[in-house]
């Protein structure tokens, strides 16, 4: 039966069962795990006759006991529950007010990373910086389009945002000066390569940014092979002590979040070593993500790499589970007992609706990954709002309208994945195939996350 499939997997001696639409998670013994593989809804109240034959090595009472437990969960809506009204919710949801802006304060960068998706900062266009005036207009635009929301977010991104430091501080100071008048509260975040960090900027970031993303790929040889300075040298030595200082001093209540974020490529398929190195450097919050690149790039993660990457995720899982290193790995986090509501999970990141990106010139795009694709230009912060047509398109882009998602067990965890990546890969923001490299790695990470958090 469509959409009522469960997902079950064995890992590290444990048997895990997920009922995606209800959000239920269970741990079982091998008998229950195997028995579930033989069952299809609707389940009868009593043990089906054929089940006794399949599990002939067990007593009738044991089989009945096990089946009874499974049936109880089924009746309680925690197994084979089906998507029910979720599809109706997805169709009924309209474009939400704006909540978050990604401010591209710099379309320039002081590094020349070999895998940069942003054309080493310029996104295929001119190398420019956003003016403080445009940043203030962007803040005004966010407030004007935020409806009843009181909590708003702005992320300083690039290129390298520290190259436009005057704009960053002007935007923060402007927003803070009017928060009370507007009845809004701002959360700021920044993503930086760290090269221009100094004591003053570290203090400011730790005072004003509720989260910061610090770009570093792990071991020196990993990082410096691809994250190069303008002169072609490595960047590890210059940025690592600055990141360490920032994190060490990041202790203001409510402003302690950070991630040291790396990218793994075909060059460092042993990326658990990079995570270990980050931990050795004193970083606890770590995210290492697969590079997104066409298959013809030498550093691209391709299908043939998948088994090796799976091994590495398993290694990282063991390192964390066994307490070898104190690592909070971003993609191994999943809140099985809470987390986002189902409405949020239907549409994922909210790009093009509640989330949008602004170029240095004030042009609006659905998100940072769409910038450079002129067909996705959606307005300008000073002239008009986000295009109604594009807002409606993304409001209707959800797990049931993306191909390949409606029957996938991970649909309520990844929420359909990255729309920009779908567009890059397939020329269609609603296209996925569930078996792409990205989807398979996502599902592997989720299994690790579930196994870590279920016990």
């Amino acid at each position, binding site marked *: 039966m469509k959409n009522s499939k469960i997902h079950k997997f064995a890992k590290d001696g444990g048997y895990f*069962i997920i009922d995606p*639409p*209800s*959000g*239920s998670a269970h*741990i*079982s*013994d091998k008998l*229950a795990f195997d028995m579930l593989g033989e069952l299809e809804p609707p389940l009868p109240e009593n043990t089906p006759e054929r089940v006794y034959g399949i599990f002939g090595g067990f007593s009738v009472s044991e089989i009945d006991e*096990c089946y009874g*437990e*499974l049936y109880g969960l089924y009746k309680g*809506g*925690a197994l084979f529950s089906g998507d029910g*009204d979720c599809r109706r919710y997805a169709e009924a*949801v309209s474009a*939400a007010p704006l909540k*978050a802006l*990604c401010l591209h304060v710099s379309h320039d960068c002081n590094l020349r990373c070999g895998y940069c*998706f942003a054309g080493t900062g310029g996104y295929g266009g001119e190398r420019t910086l956003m003016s403080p005036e445009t940043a203030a207009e962007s803040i005004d635009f966010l407030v004007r389009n935020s409806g009843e*929301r009181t*909590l708003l*977010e702005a*992320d300083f*991104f690039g290129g390298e945002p520290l190259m436009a430091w005057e704009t960053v501080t002007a935007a923060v100071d402007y927003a803070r000066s009017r928060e009370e008048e507007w009845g809004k509260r701002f959360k700021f975040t920044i993503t930086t390569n760290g090269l221009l960090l100094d004591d003053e900027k570290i203090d400011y970031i730790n005072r004003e940014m509720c*989260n910061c993303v610090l770009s570093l790929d792990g071991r020196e040889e990993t990082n410096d092979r691809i994250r190069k300075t303008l002169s072609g040298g490595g960047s590890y030595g210059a940025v690592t002590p600055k990141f360490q200082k920032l994190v060490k001093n990041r202790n203001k209540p409510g402003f302690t979040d950070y*991630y040291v*974020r790396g*990218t793994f490529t075909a060059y460092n398929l042993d990326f658990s070593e990079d995570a270990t190195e980050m931990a050795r450097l004193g970083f606890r919050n770590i995210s290492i*993500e697969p590079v*997104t690149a066409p298959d013809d790039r030498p550093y691209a993660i391709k299908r043939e790499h998948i088994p090796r990457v799976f091994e590495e995720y398993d290694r990282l899982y063991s390192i964390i589970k066994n307490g070898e290193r104190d690592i909070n790995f*971003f*993609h191994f*986090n*999943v*809140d099985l007992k*809470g*987390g*986002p*509501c*189902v*409405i*949020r*999970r239907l549409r*994922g*990141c*909210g*790009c093009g609706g*509640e989330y949008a990106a602004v170029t240095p010139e004030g042009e609006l795009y659905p998100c*940072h*990954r769409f910038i450079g694709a002129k067909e996705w230009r959606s307005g300008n912060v000073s002239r008009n709002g986000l295009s109604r047509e594009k807002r409606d398109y993304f409001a209707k882009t959800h797990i049931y309208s993306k191909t390949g998602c409606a029957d996938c067990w991970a649909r309520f*965890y*990844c929420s359909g*994945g*990255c729309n920009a990546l779908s567009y890059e890969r397939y020329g269609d923001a609603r296209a996925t195939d569930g078996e792409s490299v*990205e989807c398979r790695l*996502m599902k592997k990470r*989720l299994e690790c*996350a579930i196994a870590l958090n*279920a016990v």
Partner: protein
Amino acid sequence: MDAKKHIKTVTGRILKETAEKGGCGGCRASCQSACKTSCTVANQSCEKQQNS
């Protein structure tokens, strides 16, 4: 206390029930957290739950 012998429920939370109270949009935009390239939603937290 889960008295079952063969299958233990880690969480029986019925996700669909969150539809009635959910959709406030108070949670963080996922791309602002760490990823910027590979969206995951289930690892975000619910602002309402955190403040309740």
